[in-house]
């Protein structure tokens, strides 16, 4: 039974993530009074890209060619290790919070290197900006997960989501503060507003898109898919660690179907929140972003202080 759950989790994140992107784009289009593309459009985009030929720069080395596989594989490994619809299964060796953070950092590392590999100006400064944002966002990321770990008494993600279901009113404020910090990190790491505009054409304003300007064909499909996987992973972490109502500990298939339903509703609400946020604010100037990331860090430090004070 556990094996089935792992196999479902292996394919769950890559299968569902383009749908999330499609939902966000559709809601944004509706808010702009347009029709917008179909919700399943990202699947069609990926399918088409997988069937195109590729053009690779002469200056690129094996790092450029190999990065898409590494970045995509990393998102699958992390998608396998986070609680999606079952909260306490047997000990999975890769569900520690630090493993999740640093495994995603492997993807960032190789993506930044591949941006520099072709020697184009855009890729170079895209890598530089991405590393600045990512270096400062790691602080907020680890600390927000640490706050929940201190509340739960373990850094294993499954145990954390399990314990947060039985939350007391004392731990309410730290959870909300930690969620605020986590949300800012979500926007930073997945290149949404106010950090980066995922639909921009102006290379001088790009952060994540600038690093993938040289990719084409299959490798581009993998990079875009990996980016949407990362968004879904962060949404799942936000949903299941901070608001795990509806998660099932152990149960039969009926309970699991019900928990999947709750889970999909929560993901839809999250996508709605992101889309509304993107439609109502502008992208920040680059040197205001570190302030925002430090605010996220401080939210979490205050949350940790509140936990200990209330003990």
């Amino acid at each position, binding site marked *: 039974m556990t094996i089935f759950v792992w196999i479902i989790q292996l394919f769950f994140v890559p299968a569902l993530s383009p749908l999330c992107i499609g939902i966000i784009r559709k809601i944004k289009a509706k808010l702009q*009074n347009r029709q917008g593309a179909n919700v399943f459009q990202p699947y069609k985009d990926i399918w088409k890209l997988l069937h195109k*030929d590729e053009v690779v720069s002469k200056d690129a080395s094996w790092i450029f060619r190999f990065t898409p596989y590494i970045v995509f594989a990393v998102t699958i490994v992390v998608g396998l290790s986070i609680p999606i619809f079952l909260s306490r299964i047997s000990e999975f060796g890769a569900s520690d919070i630090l493993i999740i953070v640093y495994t995603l950092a492997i993807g960032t590392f190789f993506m930044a290197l591949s941006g520099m590999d072709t020697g184009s100006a855009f890729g170079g400064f895209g890598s530089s900006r991405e590393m600045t944002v990512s270096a400062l966002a790691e602080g907020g990321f680890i600390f927000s997960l640490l706050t929940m770990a201190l509340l739960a008494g373990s850094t294993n993600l499954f145990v954390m989501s399990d314990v947060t279901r039985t939350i007391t009113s004392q731990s309410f404020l730290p959870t909300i503060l930690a969620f605020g910090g986590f949300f800012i990190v979500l926007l930073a790491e997945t290149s949404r507003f106010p950090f980066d505009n995922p639909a921009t054409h102006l*290379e001088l304003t790009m952060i994540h898109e600038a690093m993938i300007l040289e990719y084409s064909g299959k490798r581009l499909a993998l990079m875009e898919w990996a980016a949407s996987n990362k968004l879904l992973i962060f949404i799942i972490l936000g949903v299941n660690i901070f608001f795990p109502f509806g998660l099932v500990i152990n149960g039969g298939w009926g309970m699991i179907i019900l928990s999947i339903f709750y889970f999909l509703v929560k993901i839809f609400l999250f996508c709605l929140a992101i889309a509304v946020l993107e439609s109502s604010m502008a992208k920040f100037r680059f040197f205001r972003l570190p302030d925002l990331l430090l605010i996220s860090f401080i939210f979490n430090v205050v949350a940790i202080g509140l936990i200990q004070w209330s003990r």
Partner: protein
Amino acid sequence: MLKFFLKIFKTPKNVISFPKNDPRKMDFFEIGEKIQDKVKKMFNGSLAIRQIDAGSDNSCEQELVALSNSFYDIERFGIHFVASPRHADMLLVTGPVTRNMAKALKDAYDGTPNPKIVVAVGDDAIDGGIFRDSYAVLNGVDSVIPVDYQIPGDPPTPMTIIYSLLNILETLENKSLSKK
């Protein structure tokens, strides 16, 4: 903020629909080899366009920009604009190719992965238009790169451009997108 959202919900839908057979709107020429059906099927659901300005007077660009607004909304057909030729399936070239842009146009064409479609939009791009035979231009896109389709007009209206694109991809024959 609330007034902002209320305004969004109160504005009526103003998108223009594209009925299937309206012959007065179709206006494009096909030159060069016919694009294979396999390629058209691939681009049917999703097309990425890179627009190249080869020295144009921006009239065509303004019409192309209008394609993304809420009246014409080209995204509902699965077509979107991209920033890099590496990501593109179709190159929309405007402007009579000036001498300074000739090499850039060739590089962009070489940098686009196969299979690709090249469309010359506007009279300037077809044969030089009002700038024909000037010392600074090379008289049309097909003197630099092989062109597959041409959309005449100075500039062509957004309706013309969309109809032409949909017919290039034979989208209209395959699905009924008229009721949206």
